[in-house]
């Protein structure tokens, strides 16, 4: 990597100031009206929701305040998939014939083998792009930008929404499509891309490949922004530092999911390591994952999402599994009244593992591993040895790093991991180059083999 390249400051601005700057009371009143309408709509038009709300003994006009959302049943991905399995392809979720749809997508399948299928109408799809556009504009993307999307454009929703959002802002999209990383890097240079959209893992991977090619992305590209979703990346300080160093650019963090089409929370140009929640588009609860009670502001809990933007497949009280820490929007100097998820997604409820009494999150491990530029990739492997849980971090050295250098970092990394986890004993193993998988989309770095060994 060359001398640090400092990108120009990000421009400040609001895509839709009417709601982004809306006083909290007015915003909450707006959310209540939209909640009432969405519940009534789902009940009137979706057989699935009619059954669920009847079973929960909730009548649509029983929603008088935002707290009444707690009367609605939770919705899980497993329930959505079960419904679609029983009534393929979309279940009885739809509020209108599927023929009104113009786009099909499905989830990545990260947490389950069967993906959840969604179909969007022209308006729903356009809304998803608008939600992305708000987010990208808040971070600083403008009509003069040229944005490269090194993305496969398959049925997983991935960065499809970002693609249309970039065009909506008036910037230029360059679709990377299905081609090798090396060709993508050369194209980023050729077209003079000023921004890229990728998962944090893939942005790092492009940097590693560029280094192998003798290309310094920070000084040889015009990229000033790297825009990320799909994984908790820029929210991890060491990962943000790594990406920003590789690209000589500002790394932005965005949170969305297939089930609700658009971006739910986004980082603004102030870069305070927090994501503003699009509260006119979503009603977000943060609950204790065990008691299901709301947690206090500033405490970590599971994000539960109700979407107002799409009505063909209503999503009410959806348990996302994302662990977040919500703080008031006023703590960010940008002026937005939307509350903030401090540090983005700080973990996944379903990713947390208890190892000999210590809570372990992959994101916390990543925060330690990314401090070592000598490490290209890592994998967390959980095993059981003589009835005791063991945790091993397999690490692969960056190309060109001498073996003795790599070997020397093992004890240091072992100690740093233990220090970050209340003294928990980690195993660290160097694996040969090319052993660990490369991720273009959502990285899966946790391998829990304990069940296989029972």
């Amino acid at each position, binding site marked *: 990597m060359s001398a640090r390249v400092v990108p120009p400051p990000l421009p400040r601005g609001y895509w839709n100031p009417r709601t982004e700057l809306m006083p909290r009371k007015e915003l909450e009143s707006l959310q209540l009206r939209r909640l009432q309408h969405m519940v009534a709509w789902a009940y009137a*038009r979706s057989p699935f929701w009619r059954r669920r709300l009847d079973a929960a003994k909730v009548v649509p006009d029983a929603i008088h305040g935002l707290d009444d959302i707690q009367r609605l049943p939770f919705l899980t991905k497993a329930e959505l998939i079960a419904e679609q399995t029983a009534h393929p392809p979309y279940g009885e979720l739809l509020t209108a014939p599927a023929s009104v749809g113009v786009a099909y997508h499905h989830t990545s399948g990260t947490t389950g083998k069967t993906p959840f299928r969604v179909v969007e109408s*022209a308006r729903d799809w356009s809304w998803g792009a608008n939600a992305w556009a708000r987010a990208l504009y808040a971070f600083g993307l403008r009509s003069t930008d040229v944005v490269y999307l090194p993305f496969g454009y398959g049925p997983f929703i991935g960065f499809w929404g970002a693609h249309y959002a970039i065009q909506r802002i008036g910037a230029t999209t360059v679709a990377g499509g299905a081609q090798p990383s090396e060709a993508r890097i050369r194209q980023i240079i050729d077209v003079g891309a000023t921004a890229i959209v990728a998962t944090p893992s893939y942005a790092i991977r492009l940097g590693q490949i560029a280094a192998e090619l003798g290309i310094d992305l920070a000084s040889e590209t015009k990229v000033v922004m790297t825009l990320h979703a799909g994984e908790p990346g820029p929210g991890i300080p060491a990962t943000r530092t790594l990406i920003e160093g590789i690209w000589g650019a500002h790394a932005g963090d965005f949170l969305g999911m297939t089930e609700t089409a658009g971006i739910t929370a986004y980082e603004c140009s102030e870069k305070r390591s927090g994501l503003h929640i699009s509260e006119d588009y979503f009603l977000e609860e943060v609950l204790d994952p065990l008691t299901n009670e709301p947690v206090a502001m500033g405490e970590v809990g599971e994000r539960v999402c109700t979407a107002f933007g799409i009505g063909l497949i209503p999503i009410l009280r959806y348990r996302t599994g994302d662990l977040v820490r919500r703080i008031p929007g006023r703590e960010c100097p940008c002026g937005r009244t939307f509350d903030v998820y401090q540090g983005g997604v700080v973990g996944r409820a379903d990713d947390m593992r208890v190892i000999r009494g210590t809570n372990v999150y992959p994101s916390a491990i990543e925060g330690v591993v990314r401090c070592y530029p000598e490490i290209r990739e890592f994998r967390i492997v959980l095993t059981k040895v003589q009835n005791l849980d063991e945790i091993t971090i397999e690490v692969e050295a960056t190309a060109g790093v001498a073996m003795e250098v790599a070997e020397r970092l093992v004890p240091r990394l072992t100690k740093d991991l233990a220090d970050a986890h209340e003294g928990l004993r980690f195993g660290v193993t160097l694996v040969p180059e090319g052993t660990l998988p490369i991720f273009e989309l959502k990285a899966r770095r946790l391998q829990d083999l304990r069940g296989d060994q029972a």
Partner: protein
Amino acid sequence: MDLPRERVTEAVAHARATEMDGGVLLVYQELKALLGRDDLDPATRANLVEALAAVSLVVHDLVLDYDMLYDLGV
């Protein structure tokens, strides 16, 4: 199931409603009326669907109305 309840209007009398808001609402209502017709050519219908999808987002973002438009094919 109940009769289709397409319109779940927000019916917002926005405190800061402007002349521009009124203009947007007029365009929106006109587009909906046009898409309610059954004599539109395919090209006309398709492009009006796109136009209404876009204008509905303006209406939504400006907190002027909150409709479901699926019965109009949008």
